[in-house]
């Protein structure tokens, strides 16, 4: 299954960044007609044009109901949302622009600033792209540690998203319990890695050294939290009131995937997985979690099951760790050559892709395909035809971050 990840427009030449199976690369823009997502990525979709009896019920950019500065332009004639257009430009920090002319180590810090929730995923994808461009060999231990921390990030993110979702569906007790667990993991992160959101741990070609014994303790502590989550999750599935709100809400289909090319749990909830972890070397027989209904409930179930799956993966990976200290003296020489590379990392809400062009040891052009870019379009689509009551838990079921999309 192919996805249009972005339109690369550097030096007057338009190319398409696409993925198809194990292929990720650039193709000529003449093939744009093969991708329905080309229209919205190019900005050719007419959105936000009020017609007939619709009026714009604007939520945002600064409102008590929102965590981030964003505008939901909800075109409605009262109870039902007929067209939704999300304006996330308020979160734009032009990070791709700011990375230009910077050395990779400086740009790595910027990639971690895109979105706190996906800080490690961004850092990992960026480092991989630079390492590929400069043919930097990294040790297995670094690779394993990166995979461990990606799974840690997935666990705390999924718990956070489920807590938001249950909060939106008025399950306040569950929400508070989950928020507590979420904060417990962040505290663990701070204790073991020095950063609640796993920043400043990863670097190009290396990673902060944590002894295997420490990682085993971490794993045990994390597992007790995940067990606690498991109890809460099982308990929540007994609440018909909660499930009724999520069931059949914000349904997405294959047609929607073809139109918007989203991935992550939103895609897994419609029985398809494009999880790039299948290409990782250190996972034994990785199998994606999938569900069938495509609704908010399915997305929640995928996330919950992924929490348990990630915990299992972490334990397997830690067993494979060896007691060697990673090389922290990585130097990138200015060879004045032009090069480019593409790399990715599987964030909690989908794959993050980095396309980077370099001249010598300076970045010339960066394009970041963040999962939230696609999820925002999926949110817009899933809200169409829903009543206002369903708004909060439809939006929160996607785990999209507007900062991630705006970059």
């Amino acid at each position, binding site marked *: 299954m192919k996805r249009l990840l972005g339109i690369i427009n550097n030096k007057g030449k338009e190319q398409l960044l696409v993925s198809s199976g194990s292929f990720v690369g650039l193709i000529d823009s003449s093939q744009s007609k093969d991708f329905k997502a080309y229209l919205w990525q190019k900005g050719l979709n007419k959105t936000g044009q*009020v*017609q*007939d*009896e*619709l*009026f*714009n*019920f*604007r*939520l*945002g*950019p*600064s*409102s008590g109901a929102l965590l981030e500065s964003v*505008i939901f332009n909800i*075109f*409605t*004639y*009262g*109870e*039902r949302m*007929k*067209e939704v257009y999300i304006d996330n430009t308020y979160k734009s920090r032009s990070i791709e622009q700011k990375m230009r002319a910077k050395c990779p180590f400086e740009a790595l810090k910027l990639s971690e600033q895109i979105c706190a929730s996906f800080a490690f995923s961004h850092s990992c994808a960026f480092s991989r792209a630079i390492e590929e461009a400069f043919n930097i060999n990294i040790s297995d231990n670094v690779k394993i540690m990166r995979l461990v921390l990606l799974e840690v990030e997935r666990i705390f993110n999924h718990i956070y998203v489920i807590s938001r979702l249950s909060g939106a569906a008025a399950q306040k007790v569950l929400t508070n319990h989950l928020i507590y667990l979420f904060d417990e993991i962040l505290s663990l992160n701070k204790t073991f890695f020095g950063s609640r959101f796993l920043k400043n741990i990863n670097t190009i070609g290396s990673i902060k050294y944590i002894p295997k014994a420490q990682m085993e303790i971490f794993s045990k502590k994390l597992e007790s939290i995940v067990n606690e989550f498991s109890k809460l999750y099982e308990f929540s599935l007994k609440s018909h009131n909660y499930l009724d709100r999520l069931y059949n809400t914000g349904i997405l289909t294959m047609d929607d995937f073809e139109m918007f090319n989203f991935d992550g749990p939103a895609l897994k909830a419609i029985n398809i997985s494009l999880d790039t972890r299948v290409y990782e070397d250190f996972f034994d027989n990785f199998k994606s979690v999938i569900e069938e209904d495509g609704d908010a409930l399915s997305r929640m179930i995928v996330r919950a099951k992924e929490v348990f799956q990630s915990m299992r993966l972490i334990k397997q990976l830690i067993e494979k760790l060896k007691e060697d200290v990673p090389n922290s003296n990585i130097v990138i020489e200015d060879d004045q050559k032009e090069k480019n590379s593409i790399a990715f990392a599987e964030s909690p809400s989908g794959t993050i892709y980095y396309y980077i062009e370099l001249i010598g040891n300076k970045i010339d052009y960066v394009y970041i395909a963040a999962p939230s870019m696609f999820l925002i379009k999926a949110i817009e689509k899933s809200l169409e035809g829903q009543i206002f009551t369903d708004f909060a838990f439809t939006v929160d079921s996607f785990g999209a971050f507007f900062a991630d999309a705006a970059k």
Partner: protein
Amino acid sequence: MLAFGLAILFFCMGMAVYFNKTLSYIFGFLGALCVVILGFESYHAGFSYQIDIYNIFKLGIGTDKLSSFFLIVAYICFSAIAVYSIDFGKLFSKTMAFLINLIMLSMLFIFCAKDAITFLIAFEIANICLFFSILERVNSHNQAYRFLAFSEGSSVLLMIAFAIVFSATGSFLFQAGQNNFLFALFAFLGFIIKMDIVPTHVWIAQTYSKAPSNIAAILSVPLTLVGTYGIFRILSLEKSYTLAILAIILGSLSAFWGALQSARETQLKTLPAYSTVENNGMILASLGVSMLAQYSQLTVLSEFSYLTTLFLIISHSFSKTTMFLSIGHAKETLGKETIDDVRGILKNVSKSAGFGILISGLSFSAVPPLVGFVSEWMLLESLFQSYKFSDATFKLIITFTGILIALAIGLSSFGIKKLIGFSSLGEFSSKIKKIPDFSIKLAENTMSALVVISGIFSFVILIYLGYGNLLNGLLGVFKPALIVSSKPVFGVLSPFMFAVVFVFLLIVVLLLKFSNKDTKTTMPWVGGLALKDNELYNTRGYSFIVEYVLRGIYRTKEKKTYVESYDISNSIYDFLERLFKKLSSTISKIIMNGHLYYYVTYIVAIFIIALFVFKFN
């Protein structure tokens, strides 16, 4: 009689000087004023004049209490419409001035007629004049013909009714129709068409909307008063339980249906049009209750219900005239058709138009102490006394009527609040076309004041109408400021005392407001950005909840960018229209098919039929 003569003279002069529109309307106003004086004069001592035509049949004109009451109410509204038209009429041709004077003249004869010939001639003239008046607006042929079709339907039923009386008694006088059920039934049906009672109301939505606003006001008030007047006359001539019950059932259904449709409407003049259906329904139901109570020997209830009907007429006439005149003012100034497009009338168009819509709307929403509140309270009080009927069927009918009327009042209030909330009080400014409006404002303000005054001083109206026995003093309210709905006391109301308390509280609020200098006014927080035009909550949003909940009745269909809902009673007429079109198309294909021998056969057949008809007659 002097006032009667002067009125005719002024109306004729108004027609004669039609080329000078201002003068023509001034004469029209003077004529209407004379009729009001005539009404007041003859309420206690009417006149009667009768002539014999070649000793074949008798014609007569005259006034009694009933016709005087209708003359007063109808011509107070006509006076306002004539004054309003001095400036408003400048937007239309000279013919309109002629037609309005002729309508006022013919309606004078309708209310004063004592025989069928005078009545029908005046009735037809009024109908035809209104038809041409609707045509004053371009591209309104369809709406004008719809009006004419229903008017002629009414005329045909009335002609049949009078023919029944003539064949039975040889007289065209109304009095000859006494105790003739068949006459009463046809006349009843003819008059309810004029009252826009469901399901004969289907023409109003389009026609009221298209007609110039002064004509819409005539269609809504004086014209429907003709129908109401006719029903009063019929039910006084034929004491029939059947007709009384029919009036109650049709009236309550009509009130409910009109209110239901007004709840979903978003068009500026269609909403008040449906409100007319609702109000006339309440009038009909109330009159039916009064008659039923009278036949059941419940004298006090009958009297109170009759008074209720009179108050409903006053309330509807004054409030609806105010509303149409004010809406017309805003519509012409802004050049818009929907409620959403005329936001901010009070702020941007004119204070008088804004207050006109506000006061009349509040009156329709039964806000005390306005006349609408008084009349609707009286109606509910009448219906709540259904337990007094000994007949279980009557009790049941009136109880269900009470339920429908209560729902109608709620729905109507919902619809009217939409109209006043968005149009008069809304916040929006669009392009304004300046029109001369001195006389327009004068008419609006006068009518608005009447809506307030007739509510607060309703006890004075009661005394004038001869119902002083329904006034009392109780619980600190001085006599005769308290209206009682029954004896012994069942329910009481004092709009006057309410007004006193309201004014006192208003003064307190104003004093507090002006004494507190530190009061800060802040704009509501809208996410940190200014609101755009397309972000204003609209009337469809307001109505959608009702349209969705009652989607079975409205046949609501949600489209991508709009909502489709409609008055399903239209489907009856749509079906008939399609049927007749198909029938005429089939016949024309068979007969007018281009073959000569078909035409020859057709002519010969007609010739033979004509021969037989004439031969056997």
